């Protein structure tokens, strides 16, 4: 019998405890075969025989046991319970979890995880906001199902009318100087998850859904590629026009993008310069070696190793310099025909950045993406995930209002993201942010959820960093990736957007808006006085 010492890891220290009912188990072995974390194993227990005899007999009994290890431990994903024919096994949350203490004490390293912060204990601001201005007899409301709505939003630098350079020549209006590129896109963007952060099947499903929504459903949705390379095939296809290419501080995959340029028949929808992300602001990308599969190595041009992107773009030291170097180069890459936007983590400093970009004299900043602290991530240090960042709502509002004060709202379109749909109300979150001043929203989280993510905001799974995602979404183990049904996920993504489209209209209609109510904060009320004052919207109780 193994000796048990106090200073060893014990089952009761782990975040999840396996509950196993031996009387229901038929020992089929499926639970242990299915566990991607190797957190459970078949084991033999020595038992005293129940029969009373002169000799003390023992018998060997086959059971399922939980592994007690810092590496192979249960994340509560629930696959064992899913695969068990008899309901003999399940993971139960351990309220007295001390795993992360033990991890740090043993490894002398910061604790890393994927998914999202698990410290969302306070109520969300967006849930305390309601769409309170409903057209009743004051003005005509619309019919969400049957009226025609215009949901598109501009992406790209918008010049005020007095700065448009038009002239009349031979009776026709002509541009005297080239205007900044602009696209009319759907106000929901599939948000930047890289190849590597998600599996190839997940990434392909998102790309198919994007293409289908554009070409079959007429919904001009864009997908931001994330920064993990892009298959050359896609770059050279017509579908690239629905893609927003991302460049982050790691500059992964740009070699193939640049090499493909002469063969590209279409330009991309846009370019997004990622400065920071809401889940771990001030920190760079993190792809642990376990996820750097062979094809990821190839497409990114790196060996199998922990891939850490620097926390900043090396060589950029100020907002002005960023405009001159990064924005200019990215604009030049496609001959000033593609809008170039920037994504930063929401922060106390966001307004300064936005203000500075508004003053860009070259009109080459085509969008400002703000990512809030409830955002998810493929991998992060827990300390960043749980303790850094800024809620999205007030910061988006600050940026919008600072532009309003200068009469410059809408000139650099604002897009907001981070934790949208957290409480199951994605379309409502999107609508409220739009009324507060966003031109649109971006989401990665919802795509994961739609694809079958089993994780939660309360510590379930959250193992996106390991490459062992049991749903095949963030996995890089071939056999786990192949659990994901590309066709089904693509269809479900499409369906979710169609449902979101209906739901956005269901909110636009009673407000009486047939086009996107950007900045229509008069449509909102809040049941919280502090929120009312902070966001400058009506208080209702």
């Amino acid at each position, binding site marked *: 019998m193994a000796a048990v010492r106090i200073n060893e890891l014990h089952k009761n220290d782990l975040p999840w405890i396996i509950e196993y009912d031996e009387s229901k188990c038929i020992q089929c072995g499926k639970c242990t*075969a299915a566990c991607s974390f190797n957190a459970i194993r078949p084991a033999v227990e020595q038992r005293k025989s129940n029969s009373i005899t002169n000799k003390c007999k023992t018998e060997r009994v086959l059971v399922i046991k939980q592994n007690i290890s810092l590496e192979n431990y249960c994340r509560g994903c629930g696959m064992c319970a899913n695969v068990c024919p008899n309901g003999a096994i399940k993971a139960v949350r351990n309220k007295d979890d001390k795993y992360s203490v033990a991890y740090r004490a043993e490894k002398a390293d910061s604790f890393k995880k994927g998914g999202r912060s698990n410290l969302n204990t306070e109520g969300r601001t967006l849930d305390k906001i309601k769409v309170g201005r409903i057209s009743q007899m004051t003005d005509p409301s619309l019919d969400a199902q049957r009226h025609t709505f215009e949901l598109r939003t501009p992406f790209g630098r918008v010049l005020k009318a007095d700065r448009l350079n038009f002239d009349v020549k031979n009776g026709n209006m002509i541009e005297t100087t080239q205007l900044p590129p602009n696209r009319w896109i759907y106000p929901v963007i599939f948000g930047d998850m890289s190849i590597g952060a998600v599996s190839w099947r997940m990434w392909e499903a998102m*790309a198919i*859904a994007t*293409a289908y929504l554009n070409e*079959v459903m007429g919904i001009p949705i864009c997908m931001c590629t994330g920064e993990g390379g892009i*298959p050359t095939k896609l770059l050279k296809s017509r579908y690239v026009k629905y893609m927003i290419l991302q460049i982050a501080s790691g500059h992964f995959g740009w070699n193939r993008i640049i090499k493909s340029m002469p063969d590209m028949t279409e330009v991309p929808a846009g370019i997004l310069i990622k400065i920071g992300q809401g889940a771990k602001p001030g920190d760079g990308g993190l792809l642990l070696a376990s996820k750097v599969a062979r094809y990821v190595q190839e497409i990114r041009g790196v060996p199998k190793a922990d891939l850490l992107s620097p926390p900043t773009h090396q060589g950029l030291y100020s907002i002005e310099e960023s405009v001159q170097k990064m924005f200019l180069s990215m604009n030049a890459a496609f001959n000033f025909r593609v809008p170039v936007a920037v994504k930063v983590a929401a922060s106390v400093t966001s307004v300064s950045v936005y203000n500075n970009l508004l003053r860009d004299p070259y009109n080459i900043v085509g969008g400002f993406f703000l990512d809030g602290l409830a955002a998810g991530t493929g991998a992060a240090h827990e300390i960043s995930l749980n303790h850094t960042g800024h809620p999205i709502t007030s910061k988006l509002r600050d940026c919008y209002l600072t532009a309003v004060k200068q009469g410059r709202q809408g000139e650099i379109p604002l897009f907001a993201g981070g934790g949208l749909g957290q409480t199951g109300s994605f379309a409502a979150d999107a609508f409220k942010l739009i009324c507060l001043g966003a031109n649109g929203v971006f989401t990665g989280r919802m795509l994961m959820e739609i694809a079958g993510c089993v994780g939660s905001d309360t510590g379930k799974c959250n193992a996106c960093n390991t490459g062992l995602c049991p749903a095949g979404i963030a996995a890089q*183990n071939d056999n786990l990736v192949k659990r994901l049904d590309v066709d*089904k996920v693509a269809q479900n993504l499409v369906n979710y957007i169609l449902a979101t489209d209906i739901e956005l209209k269901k909110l636009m209609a009673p407000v009486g808006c047939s086009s996107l109510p950007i900045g229509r904060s008069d449509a909102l009320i809040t049941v919280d006085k502090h929120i009312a004052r902070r966001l400058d919207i009506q208080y209702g109780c």
Partner: protein
Amino acid sequence: MSVCKIKTLKNNTRMSTQELLQTISKKIDEGYTDFEIEACGQHDIGGTSWSKTGKDLFFRVINPGQRVGAMAMNGTTIVVEGSAPADVGWLNSGAEIIVKGDGGDTAAHCAAGGKIYIGGRVGTRSGALMKHDPKFEPPEFWVLKNTGSFSFEFMGGGIAVICGYNCDELLSVLGNRSCVGMVGGVVYVRGKVEGLASCVEVVKLDKLDKDFLKSGMTPFLQKIGHLDLKEELLDFSKWRKIIPLTNEVKKTKISVKEFKEKEWFQEGLFGDLVEDDGAVYELAQTDKARLRKPIWNSNLCVGCDICINNCPQKAITKEDNKYISADSKCIGCGICSAVCPRNAWSVTSTN
């Protein structure tokens, strides 16, 4: 009885709508059935009126206000000499309403019976929400010229005929965004149509359609005093009809799977980067799809066969004192390793 003539302006004093309608009601009770009303914009003339003896009612009106013939009934005929403002024949349930000039907005709105003839054009949202109760004749709504935008919204039944006369300069004889939410009925239209809602289709006329138009056109033109246009309007080359798409047709878009098969990259987006035949794995798989597999070590094995007896997949066999786990059966559960008293089986990751 003689014709009851009502002048609504006396000594520069205008009779209110209430006074006029109550006067008409009183006169009907007195036996009058034939009215000539010189109105001053009073509302609802000719609506919800009936004689207790079941006689037909006839109204000749000039200068009516809104909702002439609103909620009007079978047996009522209303002739407006000139034009009428909004809501002509709103909720008409059976009257024949003739407007010799133009109608206003929302003409024939919600009409579910009777006939409405307009000798000019009508405004926005005309014909919206028309319905047809199958126990009665369908409502008919004839317009010589054109309609405003948003006409025939949410139309659920009935027949509209928009003749498009003298409308060549218009982009659309139905304005913009007409037929939004139309689920029933038919709109016959002559001339250009633009900006229709996506829930309807425009189709050619069949014989029944032509017969209907032929038989209805003469009385229509007669009533509005334009028989001279009969030949021009019965040239069917410019006529089409708008009908709602059926639910089946609305769903004919290809599925995502079909899109992927027809339009997407043949070997998949990552075909040149990964090996992937597209199979979707279950949680417990065999062979190369397993997460883990067992390895047998002959040096440690004592040949007790416990592994063979406990393997849930019956994957293990013994040949010449060698134990073999069949890849095609084994799911990598690790039971062989657990039960082996000598640790002869170990489990290793397949990836």
